[in-house]
């Protein structure tokens, strides 16, 4: 699709800055994600990790620097932004399913209206996705009738229905009860193993350990440290990384 681009680098960020009023929330993030790579971003709350991932599909606007996703630079041209959003799926902490639509309607909505996929085809594809996330029997229910874990799996199916090249996960398990976290992580692990490019903000260290190619530690709007899970867990270099890991791994 983007032949001219070096096809291995699917996300390129150069010196990305963002402010909320006077507050400097991203202080020069530079990062490159390879196609098929699974990147886990973690760090204390308020470190800017969610803001950063939301900049990647321009739910937040960066004010300085450059973000190039799938060969297209994110800027003020709304058509570029819409194009990128079609290629980038996102899963939110609060699921954000559409409560007035059934599960199957939630999934087929964007393919029908944005991609103009014929009705039968988008329905068939949606059922396939629901089977993949393990809840085909819930197709005609409304989101409010599902458990949190089921809702999040529908949200993943909804994002996948657009056949994105990249998936963003913004704390996908933080709003879930403990017994439901695993069912969502299982879907994410399966997805990672199919070669999908994934950028996930999460504190699920088990997930990171088993599928992440790279872990990035955010603190105070900066990338403090990055490396493979093995490096991060066994020989973290930075004191702040060590402190944070000791806090979340203690129990």
């Amino acid at each position, binding site marked *: 699709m983007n032949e001219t681009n070096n096809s291995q680098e699917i996300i390129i960020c150069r010196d990305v800055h963002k402010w909320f009023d006077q507050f400097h929330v991203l202080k020069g993030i530079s990062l490159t994600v390879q196609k098929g790579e699974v990147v886990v971003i973690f760090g204390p709350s308020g470190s800017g990790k969610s803001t950063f991932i939301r900049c990647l*599909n321009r*739910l937040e606007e960066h004010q300085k620097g450059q973000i190039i996703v799938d060969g297209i630079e994110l800027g003020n041209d709304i058509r570029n932004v*819409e*194009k990128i*959003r*079609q290629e*980038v*799926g*996102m899963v*939110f902490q*609060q699921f*954000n*399913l*559409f*409560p*007035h639509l059934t599960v199957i309607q939630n999934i087929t*909505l*964007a393919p029908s*209206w*944005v991609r103009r996929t014929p009705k039968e085809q988008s329905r068939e594809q949606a059922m396939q996705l629901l089977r993949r996330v393990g809840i085909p029997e819930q197709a005609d*229910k*409304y989101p*409010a*009738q599902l458990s949190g874990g089921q809702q999040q799996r529908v*949200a993943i199916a*909804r*994002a996948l229905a*657009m056949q994105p090249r990249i998936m963003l996960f913004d704390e996908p398990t933080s709003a879930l009860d403990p017994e439901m976290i695993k069912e969502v992580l299982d879907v994410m692990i399966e997805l990672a193993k199919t070669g999908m490019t994934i950028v996930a903000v999460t504190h699920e260290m088990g997930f990171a350990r088993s599928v992440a190619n790279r872990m990035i530690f955010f603190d105070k709007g900066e990338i403090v440290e990055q490396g493979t899970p093995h490096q991060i867990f066994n020989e973290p270099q930075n004191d702040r990384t060590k402190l944070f890991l000791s806090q979340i791994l203690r129990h």
Partner: protein
Amino acid sequence: MAVVEVKPPILSIGPLAWVRKNLFSTWYNIALTLFAAWLLYILLKPAIEWATTEARWGVIEANLTLFMIGLYPRDQIGRVWLTIFILAALIGLSWGVWKHAARGFALMAIGAGVAFTLIALYFGWSVWREWLIAEAILLIFYVIGLYLPRGALITASAWFLYFPFIFLLIAGTKYIATLPPVDSGLWGGLLLTLLLTIVGNFGALPLGILLALGRRSRLPIIRYFSIGYIELIRGVPLITILYMASILLPYFLPIDIPPPERVIRAMVGFVIFEAAYQAENVRGGLQSIDRGQYEAANALGLNGAQTTILIILPQALRAVIPALFNSFISLFKDTSLVALIGLFEVVRVARSILAQPEWLGTHREVFLFAFIIFWTFNLAFTYGSSRLEEALGVGKR
């Protein structure tokens, strides 16, 4: 004996048990009940006595047609019946297609039809036949609605076409021989009241939605125009807008355009007024939508218009159904203000009847009847809308 034992104890449920439990359970409860009954009797006795002996209900019977359609030509009355028949068909169709959501309105319509049939039969009026036909049409179309393919689309379009169509039917046109034009000055009574209500509300809702969206627009011109419009209109009484529409509008139009008829001017006035209120109702709904809904829609690549129409508005409007119906009812009652600009809606008809020499001094009967008309309709609206709310709320929030 064993068979008898499995039956539920009869007096523990039902109205009789309720009465016994709540009104006659102890000696002081009995005393209070009797005292309240006596008090009620003392207070209502004069009213009941008046209603059953002194009141001249003949004034209602003699002027019933006037109450219903004003001075609409009596030889064209079939056109009014036709609007009722089509309405019955649409209600029946909606009931069949949307089931629970429309059932409340359908039940109220059936109840009203049966009541009108019985009343007409009791007084020996010939219109019982028309009401019975309306009932039959409603039920037939209910069954059709149950089996109609693509029923929702057809029914929604039919409703959409209904309003311009009845307008054409009532107003007539010189191009169709069987539908000669009827001067809008002759439209009156309940017919006019309902026309004003329906046009006022259904004209105002789209405008209100646009204003509500405009008020939240990022473009300053659109935003300030919407705010200006809403605050200007909300800041003045309805009657002044009606006077403006009625008296001043002709002066603002170019000289070679004949001013629209008075009824149309009143309708424009209602739409202008009601749009501001509906806009604020809808804005309340828009504000209740979580930011995550916009983000999820955007993240999927939906554009702004798709997000608004497919995601935001359906939820926002559902959230404010009570407020929308509140405005609807409020406007229904406010239509009585057009009496002041010379239109013959229900209240003005009532006053004109009092001027008839043979019915002097029948204020109580006439206004009581007008009171009952408004109250009955509002009861039906309220019942229908609360059933609709229930049906739409199921499993969705």
